[in-house]
């Protein structure tokens, strides 16, 4: 069966939002097809992530790090003199290394993606929730295909707004790939069904990933003992879900490079079917 799923384009003419007139049915024909067997070859064989816009929502990304390469745009969420949050172009790079690490992991799997950095971490340990929300809102507005979020908030006062943003992203085909917390605590947005949530496995292969049949964490990526990109062109040995997440984000970018019109729910199904613990994955 052919990869007919790729031929689906957004409808140019708007349909009524809440109902479907009989004469409009022909206008919304969508390809049924996932192929009978979704293989990794079908999913991302030959893809380099070219044409896919990936956003790293983190501490910034160091410019021209050898493991990251070109960063197309860097912005930072900052408070102006009136105390309002603004998204401004930024040349400060990465304040601590964490965002550079995530960018490097994505690049290692999907070498030709376009990277954008949104800095929301690093301005001290207080007030991070509003900055995170503003950065995420901006990323959704910009319609990146993949947003890597190796961070979360434990503050329930942000949950409703995060939920609305995550759902908005889902319907705009902005794929949020979000780290599960490394401790058994409630935090967000990874707990939402509209995002792709990621924990860690202990194996050393970046393309090994598992579907978890008992969510809320839905996928496990490589997250143990990684030499990741860090500041000043260097590397650092790291462990944690923060680094498992960009592995799954990178794989998503590969899939979207080959099948750019997949919706988030289709993409999640492709991940499910190509997971290392899915029977026919190889």
């Amino acid at each position: 069966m052919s990869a007919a799923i790729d031929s689906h384009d957004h409808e140019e003419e708007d349909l009524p939002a809440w109902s479907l007139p009989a004469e409009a049915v022909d206008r919304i024909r969508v390809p049924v097809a996932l192929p009978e067997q979704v293989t990794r070859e079908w999913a991302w064989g030959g893809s380099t992530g070219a044409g896919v816009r990936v956003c790293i929502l983190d501490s910034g990304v160091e410019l021209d790090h050898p493991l990251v390469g070109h960063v197309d745009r860097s912005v930072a969420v900052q408070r102006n003199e009136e105390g309002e949050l603004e998204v401004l172009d930024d040349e400060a790079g990465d304040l601590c290394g964490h965002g550079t690490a995530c960018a490097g992991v994505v690049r290692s799997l999907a070498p030709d993606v376009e990277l954008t950095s949104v800095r929301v971490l690093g301005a001290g340990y207080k007030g991070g929730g509003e900055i995170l929300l503003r950065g995420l809102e901006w990323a959704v507005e910009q319609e990146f295909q993949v947003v890597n979020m190796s961070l979360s908030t434990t503050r329930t006062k942000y949950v409703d707004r995060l939920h609305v943003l995550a759902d908005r992203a889902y319907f705009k085909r902005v794929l949020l790939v979000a780290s599960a917390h490394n401790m058994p605590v409630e935090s967000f947005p990874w707990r939402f069904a509209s995002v792709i949530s990621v924990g860690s496995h202990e194996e050393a292969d970046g393309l090994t990933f598992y579907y978890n049949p008992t969510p809320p964490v839905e996928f496990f990526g490589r997250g143990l003992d990684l030499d990741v990109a860090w500041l000043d062109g260097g590397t650092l040995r790291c462990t944690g879900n923060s680094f498992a997440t960009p592995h799954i984000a990178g794989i998503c970018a590969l899939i979207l490079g080959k099948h750019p019109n997949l919706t988030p729910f289709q993409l999640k199904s492709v991940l499910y079917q190509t997971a290392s613990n899915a029977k026919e994955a190889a």
Partner: protein
Amino acid sequence: MSDLEAAVAAGVIGAEDAHRALLQATVEVARAIFGAKAASVFLLDEETEELVFEAVAGEGEGELIGMRFPAGTGIAGWVLTTRQPLIVDDLSADTRWSRTAAESTGYVPKSMMAVPLLAEERVLGVLNVLDRPEESRVRLSEVDLLGLFANQAAIALDLLQRARLARAALAGEGRLGPLARVAARLEGDDHEAAFDLLRALERLLRETD
């Protein structure tokens, strides 16, 4: 001091010692289980935005209690910001680490595990485990174990803080001071009007919750 005040004070002061002992026991067990050179707990002082050594086992034990650092810096600052545990095998390569702060404690570690102490939505402090044996590779199960210790330390720290608040209230400091003084005045007879007022206040608080 009234009988009531004395009774509450005895409970609070005893509790503070017990909670401190629980916190100390937690860092001692954490150090032993991980085979580490030291383990410690920082309390976050929200008023001054500083981290304060509350309990230390191993290197620095008995010397560092009460020592303070700015809360936003170093590995602990990162852990507070992200509310996530962090394991660093080579601190000298990690730009988040503050060598100056480490040197001021008299012991400069090579590696560190740090984990936030969370009580529901609040972050109370940080648990640190310094210099595990170099040959032992980190496994994800150790991150889980660290989280379990953090839970225990967070409970002890929460209780310790509550006991201190109660003590401050009894001494007339802080916002609860008036409540403690009112309680002390309610000893004896002839306070029916005051009790009526208290019951009314209780109803009011219940309605506005």
